[in-house]
C-alpha cells in the first residue's frame, strides 16, 4: 500500500488539540461547522482522525510560502 501522506505533493495534515481549536474559533468568531470541511475518508488524513476533529493543513503556496488552512473532519 502506498502511504499517500508521505508523498511530496501531499501537504502536512495535523490533528489540532482542543485548546488550539478554541483559540482558532475565538479568533474568527465562528463555530466549528463554519470551517471548511474534509471527508473522514480522505486518504491524506492521519488514521486517528475522527468525525468532528479539526485538522491543520500547511501547504506550499504560489503567493505566500506557506498557507495554513483548518478543516473540520466530517463523515
Amino acid at each position, binding site marked *: 500500500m502506498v502511504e499517500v501522506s508521505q508523498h511530496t505533493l501531499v501537504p502536512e495534515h495535523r490533528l489540532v488539540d482542543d485548546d488550539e481549536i478554541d483559540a482558532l474559533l475565538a479568533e474568527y468568531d*465562528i463555530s466549528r*461547522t463554519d*470551517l*471548511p*470541511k474534509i471527508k473522514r475518508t480522505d486518504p491524506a488524513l492521519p488514521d486517528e482522525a475522527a468525525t468532528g476533529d479539526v485538522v491543520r493543513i500547511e501547504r506550499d503556496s504560489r*503567493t*505566500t510560502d506557506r*498557507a495554513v488552512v*483548518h478543516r473540520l473532519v466530517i463523515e
Partner: protein
Amino acid sequence: MSTNATPKEIGAIDFGLMNPEEYRDMSATKIITADTYDDDGYPIDMGLMDPRLGVIDPGLECKTCGQHSGSCNGHFGHIELAAPVIHVGFTKLIRRLLRGTCRECSRLLLDEHERDEFAERLQRARDLDDDVNDVTKAAIRQARKADRCPYCGEEQYDVQHEKPTTYYEVQDVLAAEYPQLIAEAMQPDEEEDRPATSPQELADATDIELSRINDILGGEFRPREESREAIERALDVDLSEEDLNKLMPSDIRDWFEAIPDEDVEVLGINAERSRPEWMILTVLPVPPVTARPSITLDNGQRSEDDLTHKLVDIIRINQRFMENREAGAPQLIIEDLWELLQYHVTTFMDNEISGTPPARHRSGRPLKTLSQRLKGKEGRFRGSLSGKRVNFSARTVISPDPTLSLNEVGVPERVAREMTQTMNVNEQNIEEARQYVRNGSEAHPGANRVIRPDGKVMKILDQAKEELAERIEPGWQVQRHLSDGDIVIFNRQPSLHRMSIMAHEVVVMPYKTFRLNTTVCPPYNADFDGDEMNMHALQNEEARAEARVLMRVQEQILSPRFGENIIGAIQDHVSGTYLLTHDDPEMGGLPRFNETQALDLLRATGVDTLPDDDGTDEQGRPYWTGRTIFSELLPSALDLEFTSSTGDRVAIDDGALVEGTIDEDAVGAFGGEIVDTIVKQYSETRARVFINEVASLAMRAIMHFGFSIGIDDESISDAAEAQIDESMENAYERVQELIDTYENDDLESLPGRTVDETLEMKIMQTLGKARDSAGDIADEHFDDDNPAVIMAESGARGSMLNLTQMAACVGQQAVRGERINRGYEDRTLSHFKPGDLSAEAHGFVEDSYRSGLTPREFFFHAMGGREGLVDTAVRTSKSGYLQRRLINALSELETQYDGTVRDTSDNIVQFEFGEDNTSPVKVSSSDDNEIDVDEIADRVLAAEFEDEGEEFAGAQATNLSESADDRMDRDRPSSPIDVPEVGDD
C-alpha cells in the same frame, strides 16, 4: 415611487404555510357570489369584483384603503370552502406525513430514542449545510417500517397516493368468498398428500365452537381477526384481500391536527409557522382585482382574467356542494361534487398537473393560472424580475474615435436628447435650468420635463417652453438632456469580467453611433465590425459618484485577473511607437525630426514646448530623435529597465528613454511595462494621460512615416523562390525515402508507437521542418522595414508564421491532429492512387498564400479551416457555460473585514484572501516578483522633500475630461498612502 411614501425596510422573510385564520383576518371581504358586475356595470358586493378588493378603473376609490387606482395595491378576499380540499403544492409532503404518522394517535411512528436521533441528525445537517431532505426522508423511511404505533399500539396500513390529490389506505380485509376458500382447503389434496379436514377437526385446531365453524362455512358469520388468523394457520390458506379505503381531505385534516408539534419538528417543519393541517385548505384566499384585472374590449364587452374565470368555477361548485349537502343528497353525489371542487382548486393553483386535464377557456386554450404566471422563461421570476427592461438605457453600433480620451464615450445627439439627468433647481443654477427649459426638448442641451415641488410632472412643449422657463423656481426639478461631462455606464455583452461594464464621461456628438477610444477595445473585447453596446444614464447623485470613483475606465486599467494593465496601446499604436523609437542602422539609425515635424508629432498631446534638441543637421538646423519625443510623454523622474520580448534591453533613466525600442511589451495592452509601472507608481490619472498621449503620438508618428501593406510586400526574389523550391524538393525526397523504408518493412517504430504511426510522425516532422526552412529563407529575404515584419516584431499584429505562410509555404493541413486521411477508400481524393502516402496526397500545401493554392491544396486547406471554425464555435459555447457555472458558484463569496473569505452562510472558504491577503492589482508585477523596499522608500522620501513650487508642463487636458481631475500631476509619484501594498512580512 411616489414622493410621500415612507420607504420601508424588510426585516426578514419567512417561508411557511399560512394559518387559515390569518387568511380570514387579512381578508377584505368574504366572497359568496360568482357574479362580477350587475346589469349597470357596477361590481356586485361580495362578488369577485367587490370594490373592497381594490380598484382598477381610474377615478374610483378603493373601499378598503380609500386610495385610487395606481396607489392601491389591492386587498385579498376569501372564499369559505364548503369542504376541505388538498393543496396541490403539498401533495408529496402530505403523503410523507400520512405514511410516517399513526392513523390513530397521529404521533410520528418512531420511538423516543429514534426520534431524538433523527432530530440530532437534522440539526447536524443544518449546521453542516447538508441537504435537510436526506434526513427527513430517512426518518420517514424508518417510520414506515413500523407495523404498529409505538405509543398506542394501533396497527398501521400502507398509504397509497393516486396523483394528484387522492390518498388511499391499503387494508387487509376478509375476502368476500371466504366460505369457498375454507371449504376448498378442507378438501383432501392427493397431489400434496393432504388428508381431508372435517369441521370437527377444524374446530379443535382453532379453538372455535363447531356451530360457529358451521356458520362460517355457511357464510352466515364473518370470522373476526383472531379466528380468521387461527383458521388461516390451521388450514394454511390466505383468507385476506386488499381493500383500498379512500382518505377524504377532512379525515386527513383531522389526522394532521393531532400531530404533536415535537413530532413535525423531526420532519424539518417548524410547527409554530406551519402546522401540517394548514396544507388542507378550508378557506381559499381570493387575489385582489389588481392581480387579475378585467379588460374592456372595443365593443364595450368586459373580458375577465383567467384567474377570475377559475374563481367563478370554484364559487359555483362550492355553492352547489353546500346546497346538495343541506338538501341531504346521497353520499355518491356529495363525493362527486367534492372531487369537482378539488379539481377546480387544484387547477386554480396549477393548471399543468400531469394526470389531470387542464382547465380550458371557452376557446379551448388552457387557462393561465397561478403557477403558470410564475414558472418558466416568461414567468414572473425569469421574465419579469431577472429579465427586467430598464429605462434610461440606449443601444447602438460602436465606432472608433482616436480623438476621445479613453475615459470618454461619444454619444449621438439623438440619444442625448432622449436620456435625461434630473437637475435640482436652486438659486445657483436657476438661470442654467431656465436656459435648458427655454431650449426645449428639440434642441440639444435642452430639457424634456420639469417636476414641480408637489410632484406634478410637466412635459416641455415647444409652444409653452418660454412661459414654463419663467415659472421655474428653486425646489423644482428639471430633467435636462444628457450633456458633455455627465457620467454614464457603458457595457458590451457578454459581460464576462468586471471591465465589461465601465463608466465613461459623455461627449455629445453628431451621427448615430457610440464613439470610443480604440484603447478600450481590449477590456470590452470590442471591435467595429458591427458591434453594438449599451449605455445607461445614472439617475442619482450617489450612483454618479460611485460610478466616477469606482467604475471609470481609468480605474480599471489594471486587470484583477493578472494584476497588470489591460488597457494600453494596440495595433497601429504599437507599430507607431516602434517606428518612432526603433534604432536600425540600415534605416539610417534613429528617426530624426526637424522642429515642424516634432511639434506636429506632439500636437495632440499635452506637451507644448520642445525639449533641448539632440543636435543639428548638415544645414545647422536642430533635430530631435524619436526617443526624445517619446520621452516627453514619460513622467520626468521615471526610472525603469526591462527586457522586451525581442530580447532588447529597454532603459528609461530619469524620464528619458535612453535605450531600446518601445514595443508591445512596453506600452501594449495586457501587461505593457511602462503603463503598468506608471499606474502603480504614479496614479491612474497619470496612466490614463500617458495612454491617451501614447495613442495620439503613435498615430501621428505612423502617419509621418506612412504605413501600408500590399501584396508586393510579401513577394520574394526569384533566387529565394528557387532556394525554397530546392528545400521543398529535398523534403519530398526525404518523405519518399521514409515511405520506401516503410514499404520495405525496414522502418523502425518509435517507442510506444506502431510502424504506421511512426511513419506519419516522421513525415509530419519532415514537412514541418520543410516549412520552417522555407520560412527562414523568406525571412532572410525580408528587410526590417517590411511592414509585416515590423508588425510581427513589435507585437502589433501577426507573427512570423503568418508571414511565412503568406510568402513561402502554407504547410501541412491537419484534421484532428493528423495529416488529412479522409475522403475516398484508401485515398483522400480521386486525383491520387489508392494507398498513396506522399505529402501532396495528404494535405501538404507547398504553395504560399501569395502564389496561390492549387485546387487540391485549396480543398485540403478548407478542410483544416473548417475544423478550426467548428472548434472555436464549440469551445466558446462550452467554456462560456463553464465560466457561467463557476461564476454562479463563486458570486456570493465576499471578503470580510477580518480578512476571511466567506459565503453567505458564513462558512469560511479562505482564512486569508488569496492565502496572502493581497490584491493582485496592488502587487508588483516584475518577473522575479520581488518588492524593492529600498526603491519604494527612496520614492516616498523624495516625494516628501520635493519642493512643491514646480509647475508641471502639460497638466492641462488633451481631451475634454483630462482637466476634470485634480489628482493629476504629470511628474510626481503618488503620495505615500497610495504606495502599493507590501504586506506584513
